[in-house]
């Protein structure tokens, strides 16, 4: 069996990839996808820890997180469309109506 630490390190790396994606990517959709990667890194932690502790709790929590992620994606994409209608671009640099 793969030790728990490997999973924790992998999820830490995935979380870091997601975090850096939020800061570095210059496309709003990709930035949202980076947040999804962060959430899924957390899911991996929950499942790995649940398996390690021998309970199903971790896997059940994952379902809650997936539902929340779906709701977030729905709201986020709707907001992206609302933004796109005004500027016809997805680059975050274009949106300067408010002091950033």
């Amino acid at each position, binding site marked *: 069996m793969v030790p728990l630490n490997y999973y924790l390190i992998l999820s830490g790396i995935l979380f870091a990839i997601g975090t850096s994606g*939020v800061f570095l990517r210059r496309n709003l959709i990709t930035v949202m996808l980076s947040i999804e990667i962060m959430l899924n890194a*957390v899911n991996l932690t929950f499942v790995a820890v649940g398996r390690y*502790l021998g309970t199903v709790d971790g896997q059940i*929590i994952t379902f809650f997180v997936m539902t929340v992620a779906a709701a977030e994606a729905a709201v986020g994409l709707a907001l992206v469309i*609302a933004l796109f209608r005004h500027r016809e671009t997805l680059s975050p640099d274009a949106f300067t109506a408010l002091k950033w």
Partner: protein
Amino acid sequence: MTDYAAIIPIVIVALSGTAAMLAEAFRQPGERMPIAGLGLIGLAGAALASVFLWDSDARSFGVIRSDNFALFINLILCVIGVLTMLFSNEVVEREQLPAGEYYALTLYGICGMMMMAAADDLLIIFLALEVLSLSVYVLTGLRRASEASAEAAFKYFLLGSFSSAFFLYGVAFAFAISGSTRLDQIGVALSAQGAGTPPTLALLAVGLLAVGFAFKVSAVPFHMWTPDAYEGAPTIVTAFMSTGVKAAAFAAFVRVFLSPLEPLQAQWVPILSAVAGVTMILGTVVGVAQTNIKRMLAYSSIAHAGYLLIGLISNSPTNGAGKAAVLFYLLTYAVTNLGALGIVALLGTLQNQHDELRDFAGLWKSRPVLAGLMTVFLLSLGGLPPTAGFIAKWYIFTAAVQEGHYWLAIIGVLTSVVSVFFYLRIVVMMYMTEGTETPRPRVPATAMAGLALATAAVFYLGVLPTRILDLALASIATIF
């Protein structure tokens, strides 16, 4: 058998939100429908249920706990909701916001806030946080024709969901330490570690949870979204979210950090003290430079988050003064800030938001009553006696001194003094500057009733605070 008592206030608000949505769906085009009334009924019902549940310490499903602390926050949220509803009727029509969505999302937001205050499980806190955040993101972007509104909503959404991911990672580490997301079991697992350096996982959990909460209460360095979201949102939504989200987030912040994470106090107090100090200073200093009222009140809201953090820090197992002060402060901030932003919202029209400093010129001449009430709210935000803001700050700083956080108390007092400057700028503008002859819209009687209620509360809390403060003290005694 499962006990449903604890979730009754939450369910009532959720039902009235659904009723608001259905009412809009069945509305004929052009028909006027008092949807705000439905919200008022629901909120009154929730407040009544909270009063009946007082002292019962009811629990539902093992994860929702209606102790007096949660019920006190419920009552604050009901006050916030009622005031918002009273102001909304006119504003929603004038700014042409979609009424059904507006009322339903506001009520669902309140429902999430109540759940967040009552949750006894980190996963439920996360779900409640998402319920309230998703409602507020959409509310922020409700003016679809406005580019600023869409931009504000997206920025808020992006940074909000980014911080939720951090919060959730913290939950995952807490789960890894204790094998459960229940607050009491996490507390047991952490106390069992005993003294000495806590394990890395515990520190990671505390740090990530703190980041998540700091984002939601807009503490520095996680405050970037606040001014943009507050400026871009419809003013009435700014009023609602600046008070409601803060109350709910601080409720959960206090509950998580002062019961299960209390064994790690030695680790998190220094960090949060630094955050509180920087938050107060930055909120005040940058606030001075603002000429837009909503932006100015956004920075003021950041500074107020700093004061509230002092209350959170200034606690020890034997002394709960700081927690009671936080509850009192949240109530004070709710009535004061809702009043101030409510006036801005009531003066705005579709063409002119009435949120620039110069828009307030000569308000005393054309609208003496509104100018007078605005002055009261601004003085209370600045913390001048005999208003509620003074007493609230007094208790926060007293708690800080009792626990030996002298520096925080000094920074708090100094920043309060500086903040009076930018509140008084608005007052000077209203009384001493000649206004342009732009017509200002009529303010209906229901909204005036709301403003009167808020003013009465400001003076009641400022002159006779003992009763409410005793209630706050009693309500924190039950859980910690």
